């Protein structure tokens, strides 16, 4: 028992030592966080890898949770950088300002985050919007092609909502705009944009699910993404949120932003979908996919 304890104490000390030694560099340590679903983890991993290539020490905390959890973590300084979708990100702070123009959303988000000392970098060309999705057979049975068609048959459907839906205007308010009584009578709570909610839809456990438009499951399982005819979903280009106190410690802010913007510029909708297939369908490691992609595009040597 005594030797066991000594071993344990030794391990603890080693861990503490390892954590303390940041190496004598002048570059600050960066903590990169992400949401729980694969796409957010992938883009965060890309940020982490380019920063590491530049000599920063990066700690990753991927998969913290949905925006409701990740954003407070960023605001409170538990993480320094996170990927973001400009439409939903803006909606988290002020749902009235969201538009279908990515650049406008980005500017408005930057405004909203100024008071929180968080900067918003450039936007990606591609988008990943929230998509209201049903199975092909459901669409055929009830003649569904747009979101407005749902109101008439809402009681016949089992709904899958995200856990943060009550507090998310792009979820709750959007449904109400389409005439859905909230909360629907039969509603499951499943995390957004990942396999369980797609599986539940596929297996018939639910009939309507909020998925992500670049999610491979939609094409894979022949789902029908309903048209957002009342324009409830804003433009969702991706960006990077970076804490100002980290930027203050960085030598050349412009170069730092350029680096992350270079990653964002590569993210077209097709690219996001393709990479999504690698991670979510082929089950390749997020780190490997990120590395291969960045190397192929010349951002990593």
């Amino acid at each position, binding site marked *: 028992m005594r030797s066991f304890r000594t071993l344990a104490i030794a391990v603890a000390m080693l861990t503490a030592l390892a954590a303390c030694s940041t190496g004598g560099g002048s570059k600050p340590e960066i903590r990169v966080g992400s949401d729980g679903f694969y796409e957010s983890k992938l883009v965060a991993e890309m940020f982490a890898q380019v920063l590491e290539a530049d000599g920063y020490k990066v700690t990753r905390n991927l998969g913290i949770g949905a925006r409701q959890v990740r954003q407070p973590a960023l605001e409170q300084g*538990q993480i320094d950088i996170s990927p973001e979708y400009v439409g939903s990100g803006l909606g988290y702070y002020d749902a009235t300002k969201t538009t279908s123009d990515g650049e406008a959303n980005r500017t408005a988000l930057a405004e909203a985050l100024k008071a929180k000392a968080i900067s918003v970098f450039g936007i990606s060309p591609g988008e990943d919007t929230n998509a209201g999705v049903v199975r092909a057979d459901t669409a055929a049975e009830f003649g569904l092609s747009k979101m407005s068609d749902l109101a008439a048959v809402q009681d016949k459907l089992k709904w899958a909502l995200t856990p943060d839906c009550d507090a998310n205007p792009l979820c709750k308010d959007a449904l109400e705009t389409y005439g859905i009584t909230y909360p629907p009578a039969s509603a499951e709570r499943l995390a957004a944009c990942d396999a369980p909610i797609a599986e539940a839809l596929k297996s018939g456990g639910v009939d309507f699910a909020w998925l992500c438009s670049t999610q491979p499951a939609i094409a894979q399982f022949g789902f029908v993404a309903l048209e957002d005819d009342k324009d409830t979903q804003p433009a969702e280009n991706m960006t990077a949120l970076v804490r100002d106190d980290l930027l203050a410690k960085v030598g050349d802010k412009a170069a730092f932003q350029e680096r992350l913007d270079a990653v964002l510029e590569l993210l077209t909708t097709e690219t996001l979908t393709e990479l999504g297939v690698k991670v979510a369908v082929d089950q390749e490691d997020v780190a490997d996919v990120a590395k291969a992609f960045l190397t192929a595009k010349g951002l990593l040597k």
Partner: protein
Amino acid sequence: MIDWGWVVGHLDDIAFLLLQHLVLVAVPLAAGLAASLALAVAAIRHPVIYGPVTALTGILYTIPSLAAFALLVPLFSFSWLTAFIPLTTYTLLILFRNIVAGLEGVPSDVLEAADAMGYRGRQRLWRVELPLAIPLTMAGVRLAAVTLIGLATVVSILGSSFGGLGLLITEGLQTFFPTKYLLGGLLSIALALVVDWLLVRTERQLTPWARATSGRAAGA
């Protein structure tokens, strides 16, 4: 269901997660043992604290770990404190009660003999009472260790920063990759069984005088 090619290709990652898991278990266990020893010795000297300590550690024990981890994040961010504090408090009830029972179970004639031989308070504690309390203490350590192995799988729900086998499970569930979550589950179970067996052996090694007795069910 398990893609063994994936497993073979990721052996180093899996080994690292296993190591992280062991640290997540070993450090709280050591801390919990130290704290419980101190509390138990105090409880033997001042029996009045036994009730309150049991009640307090019992309440801490029923707080679901998910909630405990989540509530500590605003306080300690995603540092190791957030994981270690609840993990340590979960061991307290088990270890405290077992050590106290072990110390109380020392026969009074042994204590008298020790006193007659000239052992003073602390000497008697360290050289007579605690060694005799080892069986029940080890039973507690065994239980606490196995409990921690299970608890440490849950912390991964907060994100990837703590690592451990639970990360395999959580990531596997997010992308429905059975290889990952099944492997995470099986490894957690295997680890618990191996650690349990090792600690049984350790207990037997440490108590050579008990080997003659067999079939002890109490505290097992």
